[in-house]
């Protein structure tokens, strides 16, 4: 009997082309296009920044700097000019974005470098840039990190009589094995930033739209009373709807998940915090896959229970939508909050519903999920799902709730 209801719920969803399109295909295609577009556009933005020729105005440039610049200007991609006299007007230019960078050398720069004995006598280079402009900050960075650093080294060499004396030691010049890490684990850490959050949110979003319809919608349309007139246990009807919805949520999340994976090559490091990620270099054991599946199953159970109880209590889809949105916010909050946590979470955190499950997925990706934490979050979820199911069947037996009597 349970299977008859589950089958009907699934038939309702999967035989409806519009629902299939809006619940499975549209979100997946949307995610793919959005992520790919974002990745491509970010890539283009960086490229554009790299290719831009910065406009730099330099005041009081010492001879040594002019010489140094003359020898290195080909690698810099900067348009540097030295014959300006209106400093104030140039600052306005920086503010307006017409000039990327203004540099002011201290008077008598060369002489001071040769003569100084005390740190207070060291001459200064002042830079003026505009962080709110796309090209200004990178120009300043390039100027300081590439040009001034090399120039400083050259000047130190001059002071010491030999450029090589300016270096006391090197770091990792001959050491090719500086990064000591497990490839798979590194990949896991990269993925653990973003994937647990996505899994948690996608599962909920997948269940939400259709979930509101299967109970609140049936009540609103009056088809629920027809169902309640059959000699089937109310518990069976409730369970059938829950299981049907859980399957739908899984399929929907899987579609979105595939779309994310497919868009990864176009996204580059955007999702992983700079690392190149590819799911293939992540190698889980069978046991870990089973754990992941169990965590996702109990999470879906809890989600579906929450969505069903709100739908049962509501008189219409609209009302149910109002009730379910705060729950969606909590899910989002719990998911996002795990994104930026570092270190090992306390065991008690795994006992918090939803947050505990997302944390468990995160720890799993980092190969740090302890058995106690896994069991704790799973048991808590099962208990909560059980309570929700009990509340749902209670409501199914409540004439006031079901018939608005």
């Amino acid at each position, binding site marked *: 009997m349970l299977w008859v209801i589950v089958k009907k719920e699934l038939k309702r969803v999967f035989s409806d082309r519009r629902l299939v399109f809006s619940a499975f295909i549209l979100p997946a295609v949307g995610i793919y296009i959005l992520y790919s577009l974002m990745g491509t556009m970010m890539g283009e933005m960086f490229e554009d920044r790299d290719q831009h020729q910065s406009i730099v105005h330099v005041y009081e440039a010492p001879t040594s700097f002019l010489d140094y610049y003359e020898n290195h200007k080909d690698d810099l991609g900067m348009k540097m000019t030295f014959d300006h006299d209106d400093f104030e007007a140039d600052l306005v230019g920086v503010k307006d974005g017409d000039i990327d960078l203004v540099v002011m050398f201290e008077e008598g720069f060369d002489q001071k470098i040769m003569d100084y004995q005390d740190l207070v006598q060291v001459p200064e280079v002042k830079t003026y840039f505009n962080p709110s402009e796309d090209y200004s900050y990178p120009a300043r960075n390039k100027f300081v990190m590439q040009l001034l650093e090399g120039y400083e080294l050259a000047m130190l060499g001059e002071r010491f009589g030999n450029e090589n004396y300016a270096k006391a030691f090197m770091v990792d010049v001959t050491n090719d094995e500086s990064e000591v890490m497990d490839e798979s684990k590194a990949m896991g850490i990269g993925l653990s930033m973003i994937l647990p959050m996505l899994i948690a949110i996608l599962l909920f979003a997948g269940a939400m739209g259709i979930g509101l319809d299967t109970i609140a919608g049936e009540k609103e349309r009056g088809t629920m009373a*027809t169902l309640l*007139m059959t000699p089937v246990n109310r518990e069976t009807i409730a369970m059938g709807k829950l299981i049907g919805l859980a399957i739908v949520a899984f399929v929907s999340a899987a579609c979105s998940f595939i779309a994310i994976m497919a868009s990864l090559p176009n996204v580059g490091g955007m999702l992983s915090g700079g690392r190149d990620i590819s799911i293939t270099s992540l190698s889980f054991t069978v046991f870990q896959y089973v754990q992941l599946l169990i965590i996702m199953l109990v999470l879906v159970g809890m989600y579906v229970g929450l969505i069903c109880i709100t739908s049962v209590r509501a008189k219409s889809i609209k009302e149910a939508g109002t009730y379910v949105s705060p729950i969606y916010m909590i899910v989002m909050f719990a998911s996002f909050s795990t994104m930026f946590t570092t270190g090992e979470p306390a065991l008690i955190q795994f006992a918090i519903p939803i947050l505990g499950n997302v944390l468990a997925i995160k720890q799993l990706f980092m190969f740090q999920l302890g058995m106690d934490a896994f069991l704790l979050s799973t048991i808590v979820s099962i208990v909560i799902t059980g309570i929700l199911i009990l509340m749902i069947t209670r409501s199914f037996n409540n004439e006031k709730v079901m018939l608005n009597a």
Partner: protein
Amino acid sequence: MIKVTNFTKVYRLTKKQMKEQKVQDHKKIAVDNISFTANKGEIFGLLGPNGAGKTTTLRTIATLLKPTMGEINVEGYDVVKDAKAVRSSIGFLTNELKMETHFTPEYTMKFFGQLHGLNLETIKSRTNELFEYFGITEFRNKKIGELSTGMTQKLAIAVSLVHDPEVVIFDEPTNGLDIITAKAVTEYLQGLKDKGKLIIISTHIMTVAEKLCDRVAVIINGKKVADGDISSITTMTGTTNLEDAFFALYKDNVKEVL
């Protein structure tokens, strides 16, 4: 057989409902201590104006609501204690009976047949029989959403009769039906009666009751004011037809001037 003994139903009103109905009391007595018996092989009618408590009574017989006080027995089963057994032996029809518009009539029959625990063979023969009778056969594979209103109503009736119930409960049988469908339905109910089934209907259209019912109970403001066959009620009120008899009863029981 349906046996209703001292049945009372009290609704608790929400604050909003109290405001809407302009009453101070939390409780609203929908049905007040009524008793009657309906037997196999007859069509029993509950008559009364809107809001008299007819639908509440029928819904309670159908186990959708629970009695506040009193007992209701259907085919020997108590509607509270043996709700499942009661649901197996009744077919509850109402104009509010809605079906998933996305599915076909064929699938809907199969789905509800299975929920009633019928095997696929029985479902098939019942479906053919009912579809043939109500003229649904050629639409059996169309989506319900594409059917006409009359066809949808006929299908709803067929769906609630798929398990060939011993007792048929029909809330306002001809209300909202087109004239052709209404005739098909009343004829079908007559046929069921001839097969020895018990049919209980509610209506406020006295001509329908007069034509269809063997016995009636008149309910006004939740209280039963008369019951018996139609001739005994007209005799009792000194009238010649059921409509006049009803108005006479109404005048006696409600102070309102007609």
